[in-house]
């Protein structure tokens, strides 16, 4: 309907002025509420971002949690080297891990023994896999002999590692005055090592990637250590490091030898108490099997065959 005239005014006007044209939605107290909510929201956002903003970098999906590192002597028979690499690949494939192989001639060692190359190789692997958590160095002369052992679940998982690690024992056997710390948390451990009868074994060790790992590897690789003529080169340099520097000792856990570094029969007398290889051990190490009359290929072949059979069964 259309009205020609505006409607008549009421003859008894309301005692107050009618409310203005302002929308009732934006009443003052409601505005206050909105402002308070906004401030509260921002505060919450700020707190949350503060709390979780410093969390470690986001790890892209598909990143292998563990990388197996092995340094290969290129002058060796390629057949054996391929078998050794295949042994790592089988394990990595079964557990979703990755492998990293380097030649011991890849790095500038400046006249120091080639065995030093494991140190820059670990650093290299961490550069290549910048999001993986654990890096497992396994010497060329060692084999994974039980594919069922999972590196994370059976060794590095926090409570598992706490139960495995040996506290308050001399770092370097038999009688170093420096002892491993008694109260360490499993998730704070960045380096897992074993001891054999003579000292720290560095043919099989696990590291956690991080700033500490860079520090440790760079300090270990220091030219002054390499030029010092330690009798056993990098092995003695390592023993020196852990005994003299508390920031390294505090990140170190020692585990029994058969957890990750059992010694095969020919070198079983070098092993510590629980170090001789037994059925079902995770890793078997063959020592310097290149030196005649020993022969690596002959010694390793039965273990390789067995591991391959296990791989085929599990696959």
């Amino acid at each position, binding site marked *: 309907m259309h009205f020609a005239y505006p409607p008549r005014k009421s003859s008894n006007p309301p005692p107050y002025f009618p409310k203005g044209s302002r929308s009732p939605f934006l009443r003052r107290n409601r505005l206050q509420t909105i402002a308070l909510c906004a401030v509260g929201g921002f505060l919450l956002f700020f707190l949350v971002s503060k709390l979780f903003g410093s969390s470690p970098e986001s790890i892209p999906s598909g990143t292998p949690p563990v990388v197996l590192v092995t340094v290969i002597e290129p002058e060796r028979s390629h057949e054996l080297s391929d078998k050794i690499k295949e042994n790592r690949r089988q394990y990595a494939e079964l557990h979703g891990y990755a492998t990293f192989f380097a030649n011991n001639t890849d790095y500038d060692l400046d006249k120091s023994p080639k065995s030093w190359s494991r140190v820059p190789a670990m650093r290299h692997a961490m550069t290549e896999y910048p999001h993986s958590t654990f890096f497992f160095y396994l010497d060329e002369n060692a084999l994974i002999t039980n594919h069922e052992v999972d590196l994370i679940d059976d060794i590095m998982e926090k409570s598992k590692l706490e139960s495995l690690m040996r506290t308050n024992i001399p770092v370097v056997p038999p009688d170093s005055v420096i002892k491993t710390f008694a109260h360490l948390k499993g998730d704070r451990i960045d380096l897992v090592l074993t001891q054999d009868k003579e000292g720290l074994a560095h043919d099989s060790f696990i590291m956690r990637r991080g700033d*500490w790992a860079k520090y440790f590897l760079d300090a270990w690789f220091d030219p002054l250590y390499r030029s010092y003529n330690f009798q056993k080169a990098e092995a003695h340099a390592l023993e020196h490091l852990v005994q003299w520097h508390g920031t390294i000792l505090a990140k170190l856990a020692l585990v029994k030898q058969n957890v990750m570094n059992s010694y095969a029969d020919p070198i079983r007398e070098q092993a510590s108490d629980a170090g001789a290889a037994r059925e079902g051990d995770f890793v078997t190490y063959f020592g310097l099997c290149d030196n005649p009359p020993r022969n690596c290929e002959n010694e390793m072949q039965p273990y390789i065959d067995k591991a391959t059979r296990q791989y085929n069964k599990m696959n």
Partner: protein
Amino acid sequence: MSLSRSPSPQRGGGWSSPGLTTPYNSSSRRASPMRNYANGSPSNVTWASAQARSAEVRGYPAFSTRNTSSWIGKHARRVSSGLSNLPLFRQSSYAEKEKLGRGRWPPGGGSRAADLARMVGRTIWRMRLRFILVISIILFTILFYVTPLHQHYRRTAWLGGGSKYVIILAANVGGGVMEWKGPREWAIERDSVKNKKAYAKRWGYELEIVDMSTKKRYAHEWRESWEKVDTIRNTMRKYPHAQWFWWLDLNTFIMEPSYSLQSHVFNHLKDNVYRDINVYNPLKVEHPLNASYLDPDTRAPEGDGKPDSINLIVPQDCGGFNLGSFFVRRSIWTDRLLDIWWDPVGYEQKHMEWEHKEQDALEYMYRNQPWVRPHVAFVPQRRVNSFPPGACGDNGDDPKIHYSEKDRDFLVNMAGCEWGRDCWGEMYNYRQLSNRLNRSRWDRFKDWIGDYMKRRREANQRREEEAKKKDS
């Protein structure tokens, strides 16, 4: 009007001369003055009484019978009449039976200055809340700087943040076993300590004076006199909430105590330091590292580029790193560095070469241990560690290294003064210079006057001498 009769004297004084003068009561229009009026004859009006009456009407007398001698009395009246114009008192004047603002002139005669004053007064009154606020802010500011309040403020961690900085001053270097201290050494120590104490107090920093005298303290005798590391660690333990630790040798003098560390270095850390050593590289360190096995951050010339990752700030003089004045931050990285800094294997091979001990070892680590680089930054030498002319070259004019009075450099490090230079003399001169540069305005003014007088006196003397010469 004709003069019908001769003028005759009247009672009020004077002569009545109706023909010649204007009659006092012109309305009467009579030829002869009236004899009597009921209430005071108009002929009684004298000049003086008329003036007095008009003064009453006008409100302010040209002269007053009361208070003529008292100045206060005169002004009190003006003040009290002015008060009625202030709103506080005006209410009473509303009671007057006249219409507001009509036929009344504002007191003060309506002069322009008074208008202005009244306007200002009214504005102040209207904005009294704001006015009180401003006044109290000014008052608080003055109070803040007069009382020790500003020191508390600067100290508090979450306000000024002064307690986050610790100055470590190494006193008594090599003392104890090596040599006895003479009066000059004591004087140097006293001056240096006093200087740092005043600075630390001014900005609320912590000052830790450490005794660096050589003592038999370590199982390993090589370790002796490498105590910088242990000292820093102990200090870190002593001040668990401090963040930055500033190492200072004894032979240093803070020339400009008005610079705070925050404003001078840390607030704009990124702009005040350089991380790429190629900017100034007296050691010719190869940088950045190019070994392919290293991670990208380590190979980058500036680390990750974030100021948060800087944990060590070192100046470089003409010969490399200089640890006479450097900063180290509490961090895990620092723990590691302090731990690995001294190593017996390194020492055994290098102690003949490393005559500067920690300094050389740090340079060595910077060169050879890649993990160190991304966390080290360099500060231009003159920002925190200017040298006197005697150090680093004989000319003392290297603009990167030597103290410049004109630029008001922050600190002087009399490095190497104990070898063939006069430590105490240098310290004394720099102290005097610092005092002169930082004197107050009043002193500056006095000095200016003094200089002016002196110059005039000298000019006079010269003129006299010239005059004498001419005479002779």
